[in-house]
C-alpha cells in the first residue's frame, strides 16, 4: 500500500536549525500537543545532552519538544517497552509515539497481545538504516575517525557511508562496510534488518527522497487515514508547510530503500550461513557453548518488547527451573526462544541488554526468518494478522497433515475469495 506523500518543512526556524531533516516531525508533535489531540508524546532524548545515552521520554509540554529534535544514531532507547511498562500501555491516555521501524513493529505486536491500546496511539515511524551501540560508537570515533566522541554533534548513515559532524562544523565520513568488517559500525541486528521505511505506522518520515531539495525537507508518507488527517490539519494550522514530491524524489527514496534491503540480505547470508552449514551436532555444540555463558540476569527477558507474561515461567517461584543455578538450564534461553521467536521484530534489545554478549539476536532472527517461511507471517506489519501460534483458521479443520503447508492453504483461500468477487 502506498499512501499520500509529502515533502514537508517545519514553520519554526528554531526547529529547522536543530532538526535532522525538515523538522516536520517535531512540528507535527508540537501541533498534536498544542491542540490537545494527544496527552503526551513519547520520543527519544539525549539524557543531559549526552548523545550516547538516549532514553525514551514522555513529553507533555510543547516547549520541551525542541530537546528531542534531531536523530540519535548511537543510542538504543527501548520505546515499546517504555510505553507498555511505564505508561500503562496507553490504556488511559492518548499518545503520539515516535520510533524506528522495529519500535513500531513491536507496538503492533503488543496490540495483538492486548498489552497496549493502539487506538490511543499515533504511530510516527522514522526511516532507519541502523543504529550503533553507544560503546562501539565511542570506540569507533576514537580509533577510526580519530575524533573526540564528546565533540560529535550529529551522525548520519547514507549511501554506505557513516558521516559525523563535529562541534566546529567539520565533517568526516568513512566507508560503513569497511568499518563493519572491523567489528565497528551498526549493531548486528540492524545490519540484517530489511525494513527501513515503516509504512505500517501512521506516518513514515525520513530524509530519503529529499536529497535534491535546496532547503532541507522531511519526506512524509501518510500510511493511514489517521496520519493523513494529522498532516493535512498541521498544514492548515501553519505548523508545517508541505508540497507533493515529484516522481524523481519518490524514485530516489525507493532506490535507497532497495539498496539497503540488498545489503541486509548479504548480511543475513553472512551471519546465518556459517551456522546452517554446521551439521546438527556441531550446531548444538555451538549454541550450548554460548548458552553456558548465561548468568541468568533476566536482562533479555526484561528488555524484550514482546515478552509480557505477568508471571514468567522462568521465575524460580514457578518451579519450572531450579532457582539459583548458574548457568541456568539450557531451557532458560530456549523457553524465551519458543515463546517469542515467531513474533521477534529483530530490535536487538535482548543482545544489547546481555552482559555476557550472547548472540541472542542472531539466534532469534535466524529462527524468525525460518518461521516466516513456515507460517508466511511477518511480525509487526499488519495488526489484523494474528500471531501464527495462537491463530487458527477454520480451513485447517479439513487438513489431516501434522505439518501444514500454510502457503497452499492461503492460496486456496485467495482463489476462493477471488471467485466470490
Amino acid at each position: 500500500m502506498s499512501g499520500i506523500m509529502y515533502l514537508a518543512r517545519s514553520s519554526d526556524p528554531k526547529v529547522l536549525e536543530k532538526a535532522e531533516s525538515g523538522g516536520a516531525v517535531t512540528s507535527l508533535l508540537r501541533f498534536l500537543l498544542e491542540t490537545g489531540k494527544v496527552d503526551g508524546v513519547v520520543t527519544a532524548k539525549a539524557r543531559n545532552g549526552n548523545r550516547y545515552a538516549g532514553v525514551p521520554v514522555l513529553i507533555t509540554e510543547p516547549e520541551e519538544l525542541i530537546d528531542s529534535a534531531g536523530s540519535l544514531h548511537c543510542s538504543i532507547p527501548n520505546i515499546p517497552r517504555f510505553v507498555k511498562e511505564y505508561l500503562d500501555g496507553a490504556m488511559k491516555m492518548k499518545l503520539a509515539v515516535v520510533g524506528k521501524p522495529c519500535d513500531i513493529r513491536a507496538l503492533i505486536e503488543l496490540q495483538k497481545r492486548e498489552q497496549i491500546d493502539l487506538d490511543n496511539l499515533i504511530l510516527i515511524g522514522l526511516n532507519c538504516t541502523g543504529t550503533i551501540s553507544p560503546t562501539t560508537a565511542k570506540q569507533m570515533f576514537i580509533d577510526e575517525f580519530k575524533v573526540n566522541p564528546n565533540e560529535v554533534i550529529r551522525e548520519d548513515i547514507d549511501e554506505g557511508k557513516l558521516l559525523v559532524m563535529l562541534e566546529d562544523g567539520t565533517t568526516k565520513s568513512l566507508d560503513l562496510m569497511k568499518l563493519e568488517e572491523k567489528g565497528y559500525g551498526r549493531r548486528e541486528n540492524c545490519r540484517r534488518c530489511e525494513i527501513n521505511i515503516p509504512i505500517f505506522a501512521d506516518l513514515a518520515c525520513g530524509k530519503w527522497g529529499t536529497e535534491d531539495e535546496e532547503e532541507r525537507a522531511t519526506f512524509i508518507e501518510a500510511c493511514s487515514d489517521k496520519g493523513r488527517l494529522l498532516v493535512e490539519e498541521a498544514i492548515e494550522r501553519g505548523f508545517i508547510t508541505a508540497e507533493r514530491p515529484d516522481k524523481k524524489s519518490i524514485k530516489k527514496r525507493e532506490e535507497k530503500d532497495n539498496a539497503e534491503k540488498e545489503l541486509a540480505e548479504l548480511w543475513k547470508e553472512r551471519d546465518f550461513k556459517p551456522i546452517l552449514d554446521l551439521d546438527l551436532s556441531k550446531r548444538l555444540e555451538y549454541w550450548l557453548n554460548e548458552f553456558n555463558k548465561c548468568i541468568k540476569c533476566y536482562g533479555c527477558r526484561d528488555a524484550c518488547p514482546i515478552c509480557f507474561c505477568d508471571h514468567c515461567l522462568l521465575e524460580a517461584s514457578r518451579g519450572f527451573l531450579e532457582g539459583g543455578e548458574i548457568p541456568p538450564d539450557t531451557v532458560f534461553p530456549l523457553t524465551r526462544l519458543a515463546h517469542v521467536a515467531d513474533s521477534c521484530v529483530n530490535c536487538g534489545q535482548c543482545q544489547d541488554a546481555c552482559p555476557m554478549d550472547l548472540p541472542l539476536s542472531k539466534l532469534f532472527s535466524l529462527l524468525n526468518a525460518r518461521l516466516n517461511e513456515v507460517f508466511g507471517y511477518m511480525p509487526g506489519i499488519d495488526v489484523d494478522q494474528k500471531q501464527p501460534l495462537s491463530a487458527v483458521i477454520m480451513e485447517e479443520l479439513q487438513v489431516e497433515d501434522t505439518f501444514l503447508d500454510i502457503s497452499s492453504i492461503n492460496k486456496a483461500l485467495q482463489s476462493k475469495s477471488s471467485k466470490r468477487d
Partner: protein
Amino acid sequence: MKTEQVEKRGSAKTHEDIFEPKIIAFLCNWCSYAGADLAGTSRIQYSPIVHSVRVSCSSRVDPTYVIKALMMGADGVLIAGCHPGECHYKSGNLLTRRRFMMLKTLLETIGIEPDRLRLEWISASEANKFASVVDDFVKQIKKLGPNEMGEQ
C-alpha cells in the same frame, strides 16, 4: 546396559539393540489416552519404553515442555491428540499443530534432530494405531541414536 559390559560378554549385539530410548508421550485425555488405554485392555503388544503423560488437551503442552524433556535427555517426544475437527475444545489440536511446526523448526535451528519430535492424531478407538505409532517411533528413535543432551 553399558556398552563395555556387552562387549565383555562377547555378544554380537548391534548399537540399535543396546540402545533403550527414553520416550515421553503427551497424550490427550479425550482421545489418545483413551486409545492407549484401549490398546492396553485389548492386550495389544507395543514397546514398553514410552512414558505417558496425560494432558487435558494436546494444546496443554507448552512448547517448553517438549524442549525441557529433550534437554533433560529424553530421546524422543510424542504428542498425540484428536484428529482435526474432533477436538473436545474445537480447535485445541490445531494450536498444537502450529506449535509442533514451530518446534520442529526450532529444534533444527539449534541442532537437535527434528525427528525426535512427533505429532500424531489418535482417536479413542484407534488402539491399533497407537500401538503401531509407538512401535514405529521407537524404531525411528533407535535409528537416530541417543540424544546428545542425555550424555552430558
